[in-house]
């Protein structure tokens, strides 16, 4: 079993954990963490799966680099919104959806 496959499987579990977290965790800060876990999981799968044969593959690596930057952008954005929300009404959770 190659490192690639091991980390791909780790990525799967991380992704599952993260997505469950995004659905279940109420506190928005930890929801942001969950999103990052999800992203990391996906990145691990991308590289790990591509390199399951053992040879490094620069293409998914470059993609992951791109992905990390996108993820940090999204994280910063989410944090900015969270802080704004907190400033406005002191909450760190989203109100319940009232319509369904």
């Amino acid at each position: 079993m190659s490192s690639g496959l091991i980390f791909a499987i780790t990525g799967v579990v991380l992704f599952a954990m993260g997505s469950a977290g995004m659905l279940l965790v109420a506190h928005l800060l930890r929801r942001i963490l969950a999103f990052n876990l999800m992203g990391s999981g996906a990145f691990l799968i991308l590289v790990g799966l591509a390199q399951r044969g053992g040879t490094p593959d620069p293409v998914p690596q470059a993609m992951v680099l791109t992905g990390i930057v996108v993820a940090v952008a999204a994280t910063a954005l989410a944090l900015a919104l969270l802080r704004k929300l907190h400033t406005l009404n002191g909450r760190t959770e989203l109100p319940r959806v009232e319509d369904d």
Partner: protein
Amino acid sequence: MTISLAFDLLLAAALLWSAWRALVNQDTFRSVILFIVFGLLLTLAWARLAAPDIALAEAAIGAGLTGALLLDAIGALRGKDRQP
């Protein structure tokens, strides 16, 4: 079982453990610390995957910058938390 495989498995387990703890911990500060730990472990994982570029970026951006952002946010949220 080679050493590298054992290391990989150990690393995977550590990754999962830190992720899990970060997710379920009720104390947000600890969560963030655990998340930074996770980021550093992930850096190791990228290194194991022969992806030094990602490892560098992960260390600087994933663990470092994101961690700083999160910590700063916790400070902000704590500082004016109206509902402890």
